[in-house]
């Protein structure tokens, strides 16, 4: 599917501004952006629920079909699971017997065998969302549009469903335009990620490109990348001019790449030539446990850094003075 200079206005307000995008067959394209950036409006525009003010949508093979799944399952409460799944087929004029057969066969793919005669309120949240996905997928859409479909579910269920949908997509081969604000969700399924602000696509790339080389501080901030500082600050810490192109004037480093060191280990004793590094001092302001260990907030002069530690055995103490080693090669550079 290709979007060519698409603009969508609602009550004279431009929600989507001259947006162009191509989604390849079989691709999972994740769209991320802050609230009010136009993600849902774009999906509704592609699905035909909102008319385009200008621009056009084209498909490689002429006419394309879409299926839209909302954040809430929105199952018809008066219809059974089977009838909900078969609703789109009914719209297409498929005979009752045939559509019941098709919907019944599809239940297995949705892992909803034996639940066909239940009503939506008799299902769990995850089952409801699977029915909602099934209702769109049974129509065999060229492009599945997902508007934060698992946002209302708990973490473990969300992960299970993401994994299930990913497998299903790889098996059936349809394309997905997936709106989410969960970074882990985007990283685990996206072939490409697009970042949208104020109705405009700011950056498109594969997940590593987006996270390692954000196009701007605005994007880096949206992605909540830690330890973002100006080139000048980094130069202060490294106490030298850093060999970087003029345009790359900001850098960030992952909290896992900052190393807490003791006095002995900072001495280059093993004879292995290390790259450019800096050691800075600070003290612990905040300790937050995580799955791997602790995330520490370190105050170093006027700047705050985030450092991750591995292991639970040693609990860092507040106000404890520490030294952090920063490897130049682990810093990702980007433009303001």
């Amino acid at each position, binding site marked *: 599917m290709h979007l060519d200079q698409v603009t969508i206005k609602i009550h004279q307000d431009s929600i989507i501004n001259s947006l162009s995008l191509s989604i390849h067959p079989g691709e999972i394209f994740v769209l991320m952006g802050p609230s009010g950036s136009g993600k849902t409006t774009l999906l*509704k525009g592609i*699905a*035909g*629920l909102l008319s385009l003010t200008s621009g056009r949508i084209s498909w490689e093979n002429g006419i394309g079909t*879409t*299926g*839209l799944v*909302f954040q809430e399952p*929105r199952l*018809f*409460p*008066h219809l059974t699971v089977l009838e909900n799944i078969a*609703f*789109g087929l*009914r*719209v*297409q004029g498929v005979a009752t017997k045939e559509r019941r057969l098709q919907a019944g066969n599809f239940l297995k793919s949705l892992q909803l065998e034996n639940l066909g*005669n*239940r*009503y*939506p*309120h*008799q299902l769990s949240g995850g089952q409801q969302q699977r029915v909602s996905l099934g*209702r*769109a997928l049974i*129509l065999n859409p060229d492009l599945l549009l997902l508007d934060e479909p698992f946002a209302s579910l708990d973490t473990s269920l969300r992960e299970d469903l993401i994994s299930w949908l990913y497998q299903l997509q790889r098996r059936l081969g349809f394309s997905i335009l997936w709106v989410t604000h969960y970074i882990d969700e985007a990283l685990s399924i996206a072939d490409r990620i697009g970042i949208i602000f104020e109705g405009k696509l700011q950056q498109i790339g594969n997940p590593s490109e987006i996270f390692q080389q954000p196009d701007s501080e605005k994007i880096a901030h949206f992605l909540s990348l830690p330890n973002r500082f100006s080139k000048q600050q980094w130069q202060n810490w490294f106490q030298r001019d850093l060999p970087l192109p003029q345009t790359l004037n900001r850098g960030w480093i992952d909290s896992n790449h900052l190393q807490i060191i003791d006095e002995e280990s900072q001495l280059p004793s093993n004879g292995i030539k290390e790259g450019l590094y800096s050691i800075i001092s600070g003290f612990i302001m905040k300790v937050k446990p995580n799955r791997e260990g602790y995330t520490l907030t370190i105050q170093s002069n006027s700047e705050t850094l985030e450092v991750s530690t591995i292991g639970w055995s040693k609990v860092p103490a507040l106000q404890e003075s520490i030294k952090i080693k920063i490897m130049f090669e682990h810093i990702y550079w980007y433009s303001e």
Partner: protein
Amino acid sequence: MSNGLNEDGLKMWEKNRLRVQLNSYKGLLGILPALLFMLFFFIGGSFHALCLSIGSSHQISLLGEEDLLWAYKELMNPSFFQSVAVSVGIAAAVAVLSGIIGLLTAIFLATKSARWKWLHIIFQLPIGIPHLLAAYLLIQVFMQSGWYSRIAYYFGWIDKLEEFPVLVHDEWGIGVLLAYMWKEVPFIVLLIYPFILKLISDWRDQARALGSTFSQTVRWVIIPILLPMWVGGMWVVFAFTLGAYEIPALIASTSFRSIPVEAFHEYSQFGLERQPIAIAMNVVLAVISLLVGSLLIYMQMDWYKRGRRVW
């Protein structure tokens, strides 16, 4: 000290238990005043009316025995059955037509609500007009010497006023239907409009995303979800129309015998000894109305039986 609690603790526990028990009956307690008020009038009055219609010491047969059910026996004649059929037929027609027209109107208003707010006000006006006045207004405009007849004559669409169709005191009850619908369509609209507005906002996008046209969405999603309330509204109209007096008395008293009109005549014009007949007529209407209501409740319960929900 008992159960590990001291005296104060025990008192507190008792108090909390009482509070929990009261809380579990909160719903019932809330409607108790209204329930008592309704039962106070309904049970006593109904019992008395039923007794009056079933038997009476006033009526002694020729053989000198008390003749129970004499009022009902007197009603067992083709003329009364015909009146029942007419009354039920008119009430059913008013209920169904008002239901359908009201539904279509409410859907139309809901889809145009942003632009045509003034239409809502117009549709609410008839609700404030008494039925008697509605019948009078209808007579003024629809009778053969009324406004529309004169307008048609003025424009040459008819050669004489008598050519205008008979819509008041007509044998098919068209005037009665029109007068009732003028009042009842707005009632149905007022009843279901907010729900249709919500249902459209809840379901239109989802149904469209599955390829559904608006007409399919209305038929397969909105009407089924609305069904219990919509049918309930039609039953209210049916029950009201079945027992209402003013409109058939004014518009159809000479063309067909409506039960409420007949009952009123029996009650007011033939002395106390005929009053059991008037009450018996109304009991028959009440039984019909309750039977229809019970049937609808049964159908509704059957509809929900397998677990179906609408909200």
